């Protein structure tokens, strides 16, 4: 028994030490500003944070990226977030309605584009060519990008050809949980085409983007909200204002987003 105990000792000490460091609450003034942002904003948020940290010395920003719905769930369950940047207004508004978040502010817009692999096996050149693709990947209607895609396809039915949307849907081989997964299928050459956000097309090196006509395209809106019980209220508000500033909007545009303030 003694031997067993002795052999367990290091393990127990280590486990206790781990627990202690994990449980030890970091002084809130040292804790970085925590931003929960939709996964489609991963790169643009990194750059926004760097610029924000340069502007306000001593401030540090860290991120938690996931689908907007998952982020909303985490915040509802008490995750320590300071700012929520959502890919759809509904999730932020419902948090605000339940008292979890303050005023909801639009910060950027995005549009959908068609992406094809660089080798372009199906030989697509315009959006209308999409019906020629064998394997199309879209986002599932359960996520914001999928809802925008559904809206886009039903507008295409009206504007382009009666059967366009149905013909495209018949070629859909996968409905992904998020736009990045849809893009990955094209990057790997497995899918002939995917409908994704322009910003994601821009950050993917191995895909070629094909524009979708303006009369068919839909506008995706990104909104930000400061979390009500944030311990960094002032900093959180400053970060939202920074996203809306000329410098912040320029960063958004460099990443394929368009201006957040309705033009």
């Amino acid at each position, binding site marked *: *028994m*003694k031997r*067993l*105990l002795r052999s*367990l000792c290091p393990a*127990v000490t280590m486990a206790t030490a781990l627990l202690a460091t994990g449980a030890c609450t970091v002084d809130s003034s040292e804790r970085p500003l925590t931003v929960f942002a939709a996964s489609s904003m991963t790169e643009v948020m990194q750059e926004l944070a760097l610029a924000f940290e340069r502007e306000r010395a001593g401030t540090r920003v860290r991120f938690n990226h996931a*689908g907007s*719905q*998952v982020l909303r*769930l985490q915040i509802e369950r008490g995750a320590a977030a300071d700012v929520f940047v959502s890919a759809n207004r509904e999730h932020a508004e419902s948090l605000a309605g339940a008292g979890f978040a303050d005023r909801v502010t639009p910060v950027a817009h995005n549009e959908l584009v068609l992406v094809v692999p660089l080798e372009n*096996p199906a030989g697509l050149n315009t959006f209308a060519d999409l019906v020629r693709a064998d*394997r199309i*990947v879209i986002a*599932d209607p*359960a*996520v914001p990008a999928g809802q925008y895609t559904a809206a886009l396809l039903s507008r295409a039915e009206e504007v382009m050809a009666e059967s366009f949307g149905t013909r495209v849907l018949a070629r*859909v*081989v*996968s*409905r*992904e*949980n998020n736009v990045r*997964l849809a893009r*990955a*299928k094209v990057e*790997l*050459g*497995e*899918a002939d085409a995917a409908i994704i956000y322009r910003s994601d097309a821009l950050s993917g090196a191995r895909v070629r983007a094909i524009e979708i006509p303006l009369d068919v395209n839909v506008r995706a809106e990104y909104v930000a909200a400061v979390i009500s019980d944030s311990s960094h209220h002032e900093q959180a508000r400053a970060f939202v204002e920074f996203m809306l500033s000329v410098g912040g909007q320029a960063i958004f545009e460099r990443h394929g987003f368009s201006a957040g303030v309705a033009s």
Partner: protein
Amino acid sequence: MKWARASVLSLGFLLLGLLVVPAMALLVAASPAELAQGVAHPLFGPSLWLSLRTTMLSLAIVVVCGTPLAWWLASAQGWPQRLADALVELPIVMPPAVVGIGLLETFGRSGLLGGPLELLGIQVAFATPAVILAQVTVSAPFYVQAAAAAFRRVDPDLLLVARTLGQSPVGAFARVAIPIAMPGLVSGGALAWARALGEFGATLLFAGSLPGTTQTMPLAIVLALESDVRAAIAISLVLAGAAVLLLLGLRLVAGLRPSDDATSRSKLS
């Protein structure tokens, strides 16, 4: 030393608590009405049926191909076996998403076998066979390891006796080694099946997600999480409940199997 025993045991129970409490919390979080709603959710039926079909098929493949492999691994201890033993573990240590990319690079359109397969008119990615391949890859190591361990415990003398009584090598294997190793085979199979049922990462990348074709229960749960958390919890509970029932059933069957030397010997006559 009573206190020492108690304190060491309490560490074990702490772990047991961690394993059980999340499932209990799920149970508490869902009301019967919500459970009924989850079962009625459009994602539920097709994904349950697909998961059952594919996991049964992948289990069959794992057992049919894994049993001879495990026997070979257990039969000798040369360097080929030791190397293969380590290679079998590869899918366990690799993150499932990496396994998925590996499968795409193998069976995908631009993968190693993609060209020949395309010529034969076989499309694996984005189709149900991709789901099964992903499940087989991630679950087979659990079965093969358990089966090899079980075969190693089979006394070689018994096989020798069977041979002297006129059994062919295959006959001796089937009528002596398999019955003796059966409890290990069953629990390995149960573990493999459970792993296949929960398979998510490799399927997501390799098979995609299309209701009825490639969208298994774990994929449906993560998707439901994006729109309706309650439905996701309800579907998870049903999945967990089905898994617990099946695993308990298998344990029961394994426990009842006659596996002592006397019965296996009597079968020879």
